[in-house]
């Protein structure tokens, strides 16, 4: 029992992995084997990168002790800007880079406002949620522009891998997740991010540039959201101004389901990926087992509350029985 607690304290995201395996088994049994079929997995994995990228960004920002509620809007504005640039004749690659720079600027604004005026990021980014969504609708001219037919987006959307199991976007997602994980777990900046969120005063007294660390995390979070949005728009082939609505809360849910602490300092990229995957699996599994899909939000909500309650309880209990010995 002590060992279980120790493993949990060191790798809180493993609880999510266990739940994932359990749910997959339940859905597999409930759908008479359709859930784990190649076709269905292709559907789940095809959508995962979009919400997964947002979840990774939000998780890293939460670890440094801040929130971003504007990611859903950034998820819409970034590809909108990229699409309009492509339609105006800018080469696709340049348009993507410019779109991501715009996302970085939104993140910078979020961080700058939060830190300069010392207000909760919850409020600063709530304001940005409305501002950026409004801008998206305004620049779209009210109806979604169409990407040119001859635009090739295969680098992101084509099916690859054994049996065409996933889209190319999945590779981008894996590469990004790997880079983010290296940053967080293996680099000095990752150490500073955790220290900043774990105890701001201590980090600052030890010479960590806490303000710059937070600004960096805000910008990283927005760029990840923008990248997720671009991938979704390339899949849909049109930048709907409404995409990403409600995504900010799904990303927070994915983060906490994956073991990220709301108080900052604790969390992993793997946890964010597992959390996002769990949400996708629930969404898809309910359909596959022919449960009314309107139960989806109830399931995600229950899981979120359950994850936070059990994480809090486990952390407290583990500390009380002194697993350190």
């Amino acid at each position, binding site marked *: 029992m002590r060992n279980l607690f120790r493993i949990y304290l*060191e790798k809180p995201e493993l609880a999510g992995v266990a739940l994932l395996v359990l749910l997959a088994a339940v859905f597999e049994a409930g759908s008479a084997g359709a859930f784990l079929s190649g076709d269905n997995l292709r559907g789940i994995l095809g959508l995962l990168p979009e919400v997964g990228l947002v979840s990774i960004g939000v998780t890293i920002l939460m670890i440094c002790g801040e929130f971003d509620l504007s990611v859903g809007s950034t998820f819409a504005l970034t590809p909108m800007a990229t699409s309009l640039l492509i339609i105006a004749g800018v080469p696709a690659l340049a348009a993507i880079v410019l779109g991501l720079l715009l996302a970085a600027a939104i993140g910078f604004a979020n961080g700058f406002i939060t830190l300069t005026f010392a207000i909760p990021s919850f409020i600063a980014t709530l304001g940005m949620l409305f501002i950026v969504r409004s801008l998206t609708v305004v620049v779209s001219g009210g109806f979604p522009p169409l990407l040119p037919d001859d635009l090739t987006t295969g680098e992101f959307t084509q099916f690859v891998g054994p049996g065409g199991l996933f889209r190319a976007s999945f590779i981008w997602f894996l590469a990004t997740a790997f880079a983010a994980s*290296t940053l967080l777990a293996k*680099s000095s*900046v990752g*150490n500073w991010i*955790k*220290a900043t969120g774990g*105890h701001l*005063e201590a980090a600052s007294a030890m010479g960590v540039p806490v303000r710059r660390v937070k600004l960096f995390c805000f910008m990283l979070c927005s760029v990840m959201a923008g990248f997720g949005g671009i991938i979704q728009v390339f899949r849909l082939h049109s930048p709907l101004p409404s995409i990403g609505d409600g995504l900010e809360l799904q990303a927070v849910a994915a983060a906490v389901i994956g073991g990220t602490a709301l108080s900052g*300092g604790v969390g992993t990229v793997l946890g964010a990926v597992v959390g996002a995957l769990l949400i996708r699996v629930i969404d898809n599994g309910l359909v596959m087992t022919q449960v009314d899909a309107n139960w989806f939000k109830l399931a995600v909500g229950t899981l979120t509350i359950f994850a936070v309650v059990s994480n809090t309880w486990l952390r407290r209990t583990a500390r009380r029985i002194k697993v350190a010995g």
Partner: protein
Amino acid sequence: MIPPLISVRHIHKWYAGVHALKGVTLDVQSREVVGLVGDNGAGKSTLIKILSGVLQPDKGEIRIEGQGVEITSPTVAMRFGVETIYQDASMVPTMSIARNLFIGREPLRLGIGRIGLIDHDRMRREAIKAIADVDLHLRSPDASLAELSGGQRQGVAIARAMHFKSRILILDEPTNHLSVKETAKVLGFVRGLPAQGVTGILISHNLHHVLQSCDRVVAMARGEIVFDKQVVETSVEEVSDVL
């Protein structure tokens, strides 16, 4: 004549209209252990935050070995060999012991400046040595700091300061929330600083602790130094009277 290791000259500090330090002047000789006492709001914390680079003085000068210096950040203070152990702001409870020891000064195996990939093997190895050097017995450098007692945490903070070869160690209320036994251990360590070539400044509310472990007592009140004597020439009663 050898200049004082650290010399504070006519330092002033204002906070939003409050005159927190009113021209403080203090010389600390090399290998001296100074006990800094005073009530809350006397200016002790402000003074040590200036020495450790967390705050900047509004007026006045700081000299280290006779050279005028600008301690513009904690990193700069550390470069001058000034390490500070705060009562509760030295450690990040959610991180491992090894990571805590090297926050902001991670050993890198690849990187530019302070940014790069951490050399985890070296970090663990040096953490084990740093902890053993201060005679602290801990299970593993990978254990989370949250699992340690207050005294063990203070021990890790001390291990960090010694590992980075501090010349001037500032301890801000290091014995708060510690058991009697742990307190004795920390005070014993403070007493042993000169033997290790380290100069100490101990901030404490407890006059007995200061008289037990320091060479000299400096008392502050209302932003000024009001008392300054060698420990052998004074008593708890005399210091209490001026506070």
